[in-house]
């Protein structure tokens, strides 16, 4: 067996693949954050809670309505996005003209409240959510056993990421969105309902978080704290990629998943700090992030 840095190559490939899988969660979540920040200028700290709500929505759909994973994959993001509409209309709307900090504090507070309510109701150990029958089992790749479900997560995440990037950067709708953030008055003059567009954009970002939550449910238990554990890492990913950069969020999401995976082999104790170390280095060299534009 060939060894790379003292690690059998087989094990190393396995770890790379696992990093990619975790990276797909980072990418999906940071994508939603980047969309919301890029277009609304809101640092959405509720994102972790919304990811958790997606997982819970899937759990409720299965256990109370008997609706399976595939239905949940469509319905749960819609349900959570609807709560996003309420949040945007009730709270965020009043903050757009203020400093970023206000949005951050508001959404952070909301996240704590939502997580607290769920924890109070459902405890902290979480609840089981099974892997859908059609995705059970896995493939023996020779260097590792790849569960079918995880392969699906990577594919699904790549497709969603690419589609989102395409819509925002390459379509007319995306052009309107970007224009509306630059100069809302002008876009409104063209007869476009800017406030509604902004509401829907926020709802879309929230829906992405919930979609990641549904995909996470069969891997991690459905747990009120699952979002809180992840959100700080995802923020680091967004900062490294460059706040608001769609492509930056996607690429750094996947890359940092891999970096973290490799750290787990060479120095496992540091695996949850390595991302922050990278963040510090990147901020020192390029304060706007790797793909960010300096304003």
């Amino acid at each position, binding site marked *: 067996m060939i060894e790379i840095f003292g690690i*059998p190559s*087989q*094990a190393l490939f*396995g*770890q790379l693949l*696992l*990093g990619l*899988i*975790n990276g797909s969660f980072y990418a999906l979540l940071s994508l939603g954050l980047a969309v919301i920040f890029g277009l609304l200028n809101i640092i959405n700290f509720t994102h972790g809670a919304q990811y958790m709500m997606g997982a819970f929505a899937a759990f409720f759909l299965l256990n109370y309505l008997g609706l399976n994973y595939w239905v949940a994959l469509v319905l749960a993001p819609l349900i959570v996005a609807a709560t996003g509409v309420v949040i945007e209309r009730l709270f965020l709307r009043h903050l757009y003209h203020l400093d970023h900090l206000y949005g951050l504090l508001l959404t952070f507070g909301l996240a704590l409240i939502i997580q*607290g309510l769920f*924890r109070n*109701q459902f*405890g*902290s*150990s*979480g*609840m*089981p959510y*099974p*892997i859908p029958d059609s995705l059970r*089992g*896995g493939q023996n790749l020779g260097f*590792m*056993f790849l*569960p079918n*479900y*995880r392969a699906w997560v990577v594919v699904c995440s790549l497709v969603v990421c690419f589609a989102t990037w395409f819509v925002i950067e390459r379509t007319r709708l995306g052009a309107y969105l970007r224009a509306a953030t630059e100069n809302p008055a002008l876009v409104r003059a063209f007869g476009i309902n800017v406030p509604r567009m902004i509401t829907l954009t926020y709802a879309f970002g929230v829906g992405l978080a919930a979609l990641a939550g549904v995909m996470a449910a069969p*891997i*991690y*238990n459905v*747990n009120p*704290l*699952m979002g809180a*554990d*992840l959100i700080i890492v995802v923020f680091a990913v967004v900062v490294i990629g460059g706040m608001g950069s769609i492509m930056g969020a996607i690429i750094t999401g996947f890359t940092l998943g891999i970096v973290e*995976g490799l750290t*787990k*082999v060479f120095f*496992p*104790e540091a*695996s*949850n*700090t390595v991302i922050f170390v990278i963040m510090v280095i990147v901020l020192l060299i390029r304060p706007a992030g790797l793909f960010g534009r300096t304003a």
Partner: protein
Amino acid sequence: MTMKRLIGLAALAVALGCAPAQAQWSDGVIKIGVMNDMSGTYADLSGPGSVLAARMAVEDFGAAKKGMKVEILGADHQNKPDIGSNVVRTWIDVDKVDVIVDVPTSSVALAVNEIVRDKNKVFLVSGAAASDLTGGKCSPNTIHWTYDTWSLANGTGNAIVKTGGNTWFFLTADYAFGHALERDTAAVVEKNGGKVVGKVRHPFPGTDFSSFLLQAQTSKAKIIGLANAGSDTINSIKQAAEFGIVQGGQNLAALLAFITDVHALGLKTAQGLIMTEAWYWDLNDNNREFAKKFAAQNKGSFPTMVHAGVYSAVTHYLKALEALKSDADGKAVVAKMKEMPTEDKLFGKGEVRADGRKIHPMYLFEVKKPEESKGPWDYYKLRATIPANEAFRPLKDGGCPLVKS
């Protein structure tokens, strides 16, 4: 008239003041501080349930009828030793708390252990596991009640090595508890002729364990020992199932798992797991009665061994106070608790050893298959009872300075 009443009142006050002292509760109140993880990964297995268990113990003891005024406080240490230390200092210095109870997360418990010793109060550990609490770090103010890493290692580790699981890989939570559990289990494995082929220490708390599980898989060890707890254990087991670890011929040993973990996993995933516990609700009528009363006030969630341990420890503490008629001197209270044999409805008869170790039998359970479970929370089959005299580390082996040989 008013003058007469005034004199009467004054006389009464003098009479009360001179009445023979009955019991000397410092500040007139016995204050019990239950500190644990109220919101994080260990909140279900201890958390608010431990406060409830302490309250039930006080009620069942009939403290009010015996003229003992007891107050219970709860606090969240968030699994951080600095936060836990601050809470305990404030509790003792400002709120006049007399006894600290529960404190899961060994790193926090070891910090609290030192503070309580300095301030001469009482520390009754139910949730924390590190066997150092009655070993090198033992204290005349501390009693380790429910279980410890040595008893878990010997219960589960022994049973598994003896049925052929002789090569081990450890997945260890990277803090005091994980290290202690790994150390104690490795000792059992090696003593029985087994071999530890590798280990990986993961950050606490973690969410994704697949990388570590893959390393365990590559090691080809027969047994993957999970030296972690709470949602870390839950996620490790769930993800091991996903990666086909058990189908691949390796087995998992959950070295510390609780009934709330099994509940969270569901029997479909948890079936067949072997674990050591100090207490289970379905072992006898007393336990069943307690569990049902507890669950009714705890959102339907059944008590874990940590909750039962809190109940038992608080009961014995109150008995000792009743006998001593004072709560002022922590060392004296603990000495009294060691002198009196323990007996309560959940753990039956037992004793507290010189090193502060509470002694009772431990039980080896196997998680039922879904079709074997007859109702909610019916999760365990009893595989073996480890008698009290074998369940815990022999007094002479702990290296506790309180033990005079």
